């Protein structure tokens, strides 16, 4: 479904992605892990066209992407942002947030579609005319997922969808995402620094550091900690919680 090869990207003079290769099968779930600033979110943002300065080949649904994305692309690929407090327009009601994409793409029947999308993410219809600030973090993230789903995409890019939520809500949202993938046959690319989340959600995993993929692994390998690259080992240890001896042994990999 997604084939990325030799992807390089720059922010001004910073070379933030270096020869990234990723391949995600249809209905697959691919995880990108790494520390903050490793470029994992940039991969998603480059796919969606939010990064201007990039080189390489991105094939989505067997179609090569050019510098601009068109409407058909956005019907195929949608993204859920990390921070549900920032990704919903503070002056738009949930209803307007969900109706707008329907109108832009001329899908029609917005009323029924909004009700259905809210239903899909397990939100009561009573939330429909509220503003984002009247919702909790978990509810907001559900709205953000509903907004991504209302265009009936085949691919969902998830940029740390649970890292801004507290632990009990995280599980709810992850279960929701898992259910939606099964029910709607979606393909996921998920970015996270939480190894447990990625191990739970994804089949294949790539570990990124300083804009480069250092290792590819499967979910079992990640869960068991049988990773080969020293940086992956280090990341795995870091995920185990704070330990002075472990932290002292860390090196900066480049």
């Amino acid at each position: 479904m997604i084939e990325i090869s030799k992807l390089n990207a720059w922010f001004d003079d910073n070379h933030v992605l270096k020869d990234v290769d990723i391949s995600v099968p249809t209905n697959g779930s691919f995880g990108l892990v790494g520390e903050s600033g490793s470029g994992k979110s940039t991969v998603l943002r480059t796919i969606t066209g939010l990064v201007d300065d990039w080189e390489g080949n991105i094939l989505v649904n067997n179609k090569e992407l050019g510098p601009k994305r068109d409407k058909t692309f956005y019907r195929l690929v949608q993204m859920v942002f990390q921070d549900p407090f920032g990704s919903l327009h503070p002056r738009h009601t949930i209803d307007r947030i969900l109706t707008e994409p329907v109108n832009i793409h001329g899908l029609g029947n917005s009323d029924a579609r909004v009700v259905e999308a809210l239903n899909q993410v397990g939100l009561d219809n009573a939330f429909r005319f509220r503003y984002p600030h009247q919702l909790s973090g978990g509810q907001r993230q559900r709205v953000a997922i509903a907004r991504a789903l209302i265009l009936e995409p085949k691919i969902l890019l998830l940029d740390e969808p649970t890292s801004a939520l507290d632990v009990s809500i995280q599980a709810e949202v992850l279960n929701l995402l898992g259910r939606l993938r099964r029910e709607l046959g979606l393909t996921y690319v998920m970015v996270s620094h939480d190894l447990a989340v990625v191990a739970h959600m994804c089949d294949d995993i790539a570990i990124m550091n300083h804009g480069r993929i250092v290792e590819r692994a499967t979910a079992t390998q990640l869960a068991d900690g049988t990773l080969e690259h020293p940086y992956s080992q280090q990341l795995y240890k870091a995920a185990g919680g704070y330990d002075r001896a472990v932290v002292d042994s860390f090196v900066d990999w480049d």
Partner: protein
Amino acid sequence: MNTQTHISKPGLKNWLTSDTPQSRFQAQCGRTWLGWIKFTENKLAMVGLSIVIGLILVTIFAPILAPYDPLAADLTNRIQPPGAEHWFGTDQLGRDILSRLIYGAQYTLLIVGLVAITAAPLGLLVGTAAGFFGGWVDAVLMRITDIFLAFPKLILALAFVSALGPGIENAILAIAITAWPPYARIARAETITVRKADYIEAARLQGTSNLGLIIGHITPMCMSSLVVRVTLDMAGMILIAAGLGFLGLGAQPPMPEWGAMVSDGRQFLLEQWWVATVPGLAIFVVSLGFNLLGDGLRDVLDPRGGD
């Protein structure tokens, strides 16, 4: 759908304050109602609002309210002091000042209204476009704005009116031309703070066009500060219009524009104070009204006030 809600929860107030509105219309009405409640808590803002509403009513009902013809000269009754027959006295041509005041309200309202509906959208458009696109669009638009901002408003308006020729239409045009740059600045500043926000990028990923982003997503974020600024500026616009009228560049005789009336009365200011003072007071009261209204709107609309 609306009628159903009426039945299940009787009373307009319940319908308005329902926390689970059943339709877009009901939700909108409910929010307007809550905003209104908040606004009414501010007594000074209510005073401002009543002054502005009063001005509008006087404009509409001028022919009924005015006791005399505002333009009819009566030289035998020149410069009469305020009294039972002429509440605010008469001017140097024997015209009833109260009637002229009442008929003059429409010009004040016209000036304020026209300037607000031309200058505010223009400034908003320039500012949001500059902030949104950045780069050379920003540079060009903002340098033009800077040029306009570099001159004092009244001087620039004076220059425009002298170039266009005296008259109330040209005065309005000149005020509008001088009023938009601050709005462009405000709109640009607000735009820059939100243009990289996740919700703008999320909207972009929904396929929203640049124009759609500016109008549907950026503009609402600029509106509250802009509306407040416009209402606060209305007082200044009235004063500039009055100033132009006073200098003979705005409304032309015998039009009962307030600034022109002050100008006419200045020759008799020491002996017959009421000729200039009464229209001056009217300008003062209306300016104050708009100022208070703007202050109140700030409390209701300012996003930083929290809602």
